[in-house]
Structure formats: structure tokens, C-alpha cells
């Protein structure tokens, strides 16, 4: 394979990897703080994409203003807020009732929510996917990177995702807000004694993790068709990413997401039949050698 081809596959792998990174980051935050395995994460990612699509193509006509569209930039803000809000409602009214039980109950609840959301959207929208027509003019077109032609939009998605991921990491690992969050995980009683409302903090954190999924969904809308199953297809791979990175490790989720995107991209070029399995193969190897994951701490 020529150097150009390797560079090209690297870029493609990266554009896949940023989605893994954003989604596994949200999962890792939620697992780290709430000990909930959020199986609805894929469905919430799908929901983010649908907020963008509905806002652009359907909302205007519904409100009797067929010419009105909610643009892409608005969707980038509105979708995470709306879906994050839904996440907070789920945490406050459903998940909170299950914290005293085994983790499996949280998993079953979120799995059920995922099936309901998917079923609901599959009922009203085309399962093959509906194109999202709202990609801004300023981001359409192709850039010549020298070694390949690359869509401007994907370049934007890569940059924005990386910025969001590392900003999140910075807040959690390097600021006093993050310190409180981490302390709340270690010892909620003690943190409450300092006058911090831990239940509210947990709700907000869950909402934030979900908002990241919705943001990824909006970013994915112009690249892939918006379909009720787009999250279901992705979530299993993302769980594998989280396991490889180490459950609950923030940096682990980001780095592993990007890295596995690259590995997958190169596999697609070198040996395509293994492209969908390579991540799971790595998962098996990592579990055998480092059961806590690459970045996980051995307890």
C-alpha cells in the first residue's frame, strides 16, 4: 500500500473514530459516576440526529410555516439540550429508583428505553434512512488534502469532536468542578456533608453524557442517513471500545475511540472481511491480557 493510501485510510479511520470517541466518552462518564451501563446511548444518539432532521424538514410544515427550517448550527445546540433534558428526566424519574438494586436492572431499563425509542421512530420514519438536507453551504464541497479528496464537512466533524472530547476531559480531570464530580463518585456521603447536592449533580452528569450522544447524532446526520437503527448498529461497537479503554476511564474512552477508528479504517483497506470483527478481536485480546482495559485501574 502506498503512503498516500495509508494516509487516506487514516483520515477515514479518524472520521469514524471521533464518533466512537464521543459516544464512548458519554458512556464512560455515565458509568464512572452512576455505575449505570446506559444501553439507551445508541438510541439517544439516534434521537439527536432526528431532532436535527425533524427541525429541518418537518417542524416548519407542522407549525404551518413550510419555508421555515431549523438550521444545522441551531440543531447543534438545540439537540443536545433537548435530548440531554430527556436524559435528565430518565435519570430523575426512572433510573434513580434502581440505584439500590443490582446493575443489571439499570441495564435492562435502558435497553427497554432503547427498544421503545427505536420502535417509535421505526413506526414513523423510513428504516432505510432519510437524508438530512440541512448541511450548511459553508461546509459542503471537498478539500484536496494532497493525498486525497476529503469532504469539508467530515473535516469539520473531526475537529469539533476532538475539541469537545478534550474539553470534557479537561473539565473532569483538571478543574475544581471535575474534582467535586470525582469526589462524589468516591464518597457521596462525604461530598454531601460539604453542602453539595449529589443527586442533582448525578442528574446533570447523566444529562451531559446523553447530550454528548445527541451532539454526535447531529454531527452524524449529514454523513449517514438518519435512520431509527443508526444507534443500534453503532452501540455494540462502542461498548467494545469502552471495554477496551477500561470502563469509566475518561481519557481511555477518548484515546481508544480514536485509535480503534484508525485500526478499523486500516483493516477496511488491508482485509475488508475482518473490518466489522477486528474491534471485537482486540477486545478479546485486551480482556485476556489486561482485564481492566488499557486505561483502567486494576482494583
Amino acid at each position, binding site marked *: 500500500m502506498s503512503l498516500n493510501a495509508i494516509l487516506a485510510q487514516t483520515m*477515514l479511520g479518524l472520521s469514524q473514530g471521533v464518533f466512537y470517541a464521543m459516544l464512548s466518552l458519554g458512556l464512560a462518564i455515565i458509568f464512572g459516576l452512576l455505575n449505570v451501563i446506559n444501553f439507551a446511548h445508541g438510541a439517544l444518539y439516534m434521537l439527536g440526529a432526528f431532532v436535527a432532521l425533524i427541525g429541518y424538514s418537518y417542524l416548519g410544515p407542522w407549525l404551518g410555516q413550510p419555508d421555515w427550517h431549523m438550521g444545522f448550527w441551531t440543531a447543534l445546540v438545540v439537540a443536545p439540550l433537548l435530548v440531554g433534558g430527556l436524559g435528565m428526566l430518565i435519570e430523575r424519574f426512572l433510573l434513580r429508583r434502581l440505584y439500590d438494586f443490582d446493575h443489571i436492572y439499570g441495564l435492562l431499563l435502558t435497553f427497554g428505553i432503547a427498544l421503545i425509542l427505536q420502535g417509535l421512530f421505526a413506526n414513523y420514519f423510513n*428504516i432505510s434512512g432519510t437524508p438530512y438536507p440541512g448541511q450548511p453551504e459553508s461546509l459542503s464541497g471537498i478539500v484536496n488534502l494532497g493525498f486525497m479528496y476529503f469532504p469539508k464537512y467530515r473535516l469539520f466533524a473531526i475537529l469539533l469532536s476532538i475539541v469537545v472530547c478534550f474539553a470534557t476531559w479537561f473539565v473532569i480531570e483538571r478543574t475544581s468542578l471535575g474534582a467535586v464530580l470525582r469526589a462524589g463518585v468516591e464518597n457521596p456521603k462525604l461530598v454531601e456533608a460539604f453542602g453539595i447536592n449529589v443527586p442533582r449533580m448525578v442528574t446533570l452528569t447523566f444529562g451531559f453524557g446523553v447530550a454528548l450522544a445527541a451532539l454526535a447524532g447531529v454531527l452524524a446526520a449529514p454523513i*449517514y442517513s438518519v435512520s431509527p437503527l443508526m444507534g443500534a448498529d453503532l452501540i455494540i461497537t462502542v461498548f467494545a471500545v469502552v471495554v477496551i479503554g477500561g470502563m469509566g476511564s475518561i481519557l481511555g474512552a477518548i484515546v481508544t475511540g480514536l485509535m480503534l477508528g484508525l485500526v478499523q479504517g486500516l483493516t477496511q483497506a488491508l482485509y475488508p472481511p475482518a*473490518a466489522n470483527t477486528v474491534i471485537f478481536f482486540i477486545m478479546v485480546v485486551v480482556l485476556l491480557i489486561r482485564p481492566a482495559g488499557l486505561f483502567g485501574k486494576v482494583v
Partner: protein
Amino acid sequence: MNKPFLTAVCTTGALMFGAAQAADGPSDGSVKIGVLTDMSGVYAAIEGPGSVIAAEMAIEDFGGEVLGKPIELTSADHQEKADVASSIARRWIDRDNVDMIVGMVNSAVGLAVQGLASDKKTITMNTGAGSQELTESQCSKYGIHYVYDTYALPVGTATAMVENGGKKWFFITADYTFGHSLQKSTARVVENLGGEVVGEVNAPLATSDFSSYLLQASSSGADVIALANAGNDTVNSIKQAHEFGIVDRGQKLAGMLVFLSDVKALGLETAQGLQFTTAFYWDRTEESREWSQRFLEKHDEMPTMVDAGVYSSTLAYLKAVEAAGTDEADAVRAELGDMKINDFFVKDGSIEPNGLMPHDMYLVRVKQPSESEGPWDLLEVVSTIPADQAYIATEDSACPLLDE
């Protein structure tokens, strides 16, 4: 690794494999038809809930009963898994007395169910799967292949593209029976016309990002990038080919199997100009428009060629039961072989001994946005490929049944 996660993995596995829908209870004294298809997965827009509606319409139009017995309908989701499909089919036949199974999109499912049903003397009307094997080496007495096969699909499309100068072909192929079979028969057409195959890549089924494969295709220097895949895979590959500007830089895309729902999902802006072969387009004749309008009212979507095929094959089966005076499979199959099928889907169709139902196919072109006059005004019929050119001649078929 923490315990919760391992429990989670096991639980999820159990949830995903245990989700087959329950069928109705056992029945006696009725003719029972089962629609076995993909209700929610990668091919559900092609042959999913819409095909159940099509079967309902056929039963309704037939009058709801045959030989004085009620016609019952049941349906199930095979989840694209041959083992799930086989166990549903076995239960339907052994316990629920299902007399005919229709649908079976996905060739792995189609071959498995046809084999199983034939051993149990049950008629299958395959409307969804494409593999030519269904009527070739794996043909069976009770298995009928109704709508399209991998032999017929490339005849119109590949011929038109090679004749317009597309000599060098690169294949992006769905990595299972159907994709390989489609690639093989397309390559045959291309090479017979003096073209050549310069490369191929096998992509796993249900890939969301085809850009890597498209890049390989693009750098191969081929004139035509042929997509030997279906459903969401086709939609994603066409969409991403446009995103990377591959079409703008002069290479042509050939969708070897494209459905109306795919064109709808892509939008005319992206799909315009794409040529492909189909067995049915709603806006072709007065009859097809009339039926499709009724379907649209029930399903909110225009029928794919598979939906139309489910209707036509179910109706043909019921007519054969009536003519035979029994629902016993041998008698019905004999009747199906003798009768001429005439409806909006097929004219003077007949089912060959190998189970194939040859009929005219149509080369279509996706309209430009400016040519389209409504939300479903998507295609223009370019030419008709007569049944005898589209399908393999019965004397050339490798079906072992023909030697007997």
C-alpha cells in the same frame, strides 16, 4: 473486568436472540399463509411491514376465503438470521399448519427456508431473496422464485453501461451468498460485452461507512463502480460516493440492486441519473398505478417491487389452491406450473419446473429533481427487457430436478 459488565453482555445476548415474535395458535380447516421477512432490520424498507400489507391486500381481493375455508395470515421477523428463520418456519409448518411461506428477503434466509420447507412439502414463494441458487443447484420442487434474481438484475443495467463506454469495472460486494452471486453474474455480462473487471472488495453486510471501499474503487482507475449490495448498504455507498466527489470526478456508479425505497432514502438530488433494473415500478401502467394507490393509502409508502411481488404471488397461490380444489402441496404446485399468471405485476407469467417465474424486467433511470412532479415521481422507465432475455433459459438451468 467488573462483574456488571459481564452480566450485561450475557443478558444482552439473551435478549437479542430471544426476540422472535410468537406466531398464532394451531389451525385446522383453513388455508394459512405466513409472511416471513425482515420487519425491522437492514432490509425492512424493502420487504418489511409493507409486504405484510401486500399479502393482506391479496387475501382481501381474493375474497377472504378459498374452497369455503377462511384464509389466515401470520407474519414473523426473521432478523436476517437463517437459524431464526428456520426455527420459525419449522414451527409454522409442524405446529401451526402454515401452507405457504412468502417473503424471505436475504438469500441466506431464503435458501435455508426453501430447503427446510421443501423437505416438509410446503410451498415457498420467494419474493425477497436474490440468489440464483434458489432455482439452480439448490432448486427444489416446492420452492418458487418470483420477483428477481441475480441473473436478471445485471442484464439491463450492465449492458447499458458497457455500451456507453464503461469498460473497466470495480465491484463493491456484500460479503455473503447474494453479493457474490450478483457479482459473478454481472461480471459475466460485462466480460461478454468486451469489458473487464479490474478489482473487487468484499464489504461486510450492514456497513455504515463505505468510504474506505469507495476510495479503493476510486483509485483503481475503473470506469464503473458496481455496487453488488442491497438496501441500506446501497444507500450508504451511493451517498458517500457523492460526498467524496467520486461521481463528479467522472467515475460512474452502477447499483446492481436498487429498490424504490432506496431512491426515496437517497433523495433525487443524490440519486439522479442512476440507472438500475427493476421488476416493477408503480407508475408504469394504469393497472399498476391503481393498485399502488391503494397500497399507498394503507402504508404511506409506494410499493417496492418486492411488495408488488408478495401481492402477486400470494394471489397466484390462492388461485392455484382454488383450481386444484385442495391445499395439498403437490396438487397446488402442479396447478401453479400449468396456470398463466396475469395481474398488474406480470403478464402471462408461468412457473418453470425449477421454480423460476420469468417475467419482463425494466431498465429505469432516476429522474432529476426538476423532472419530478410529486413525492413518489422518482423513476423513468427507459426500456423493457423481455423475460426470455432477462432470465436464464430453463434448458440452461443447472437445477437437478430438470434431469429427472
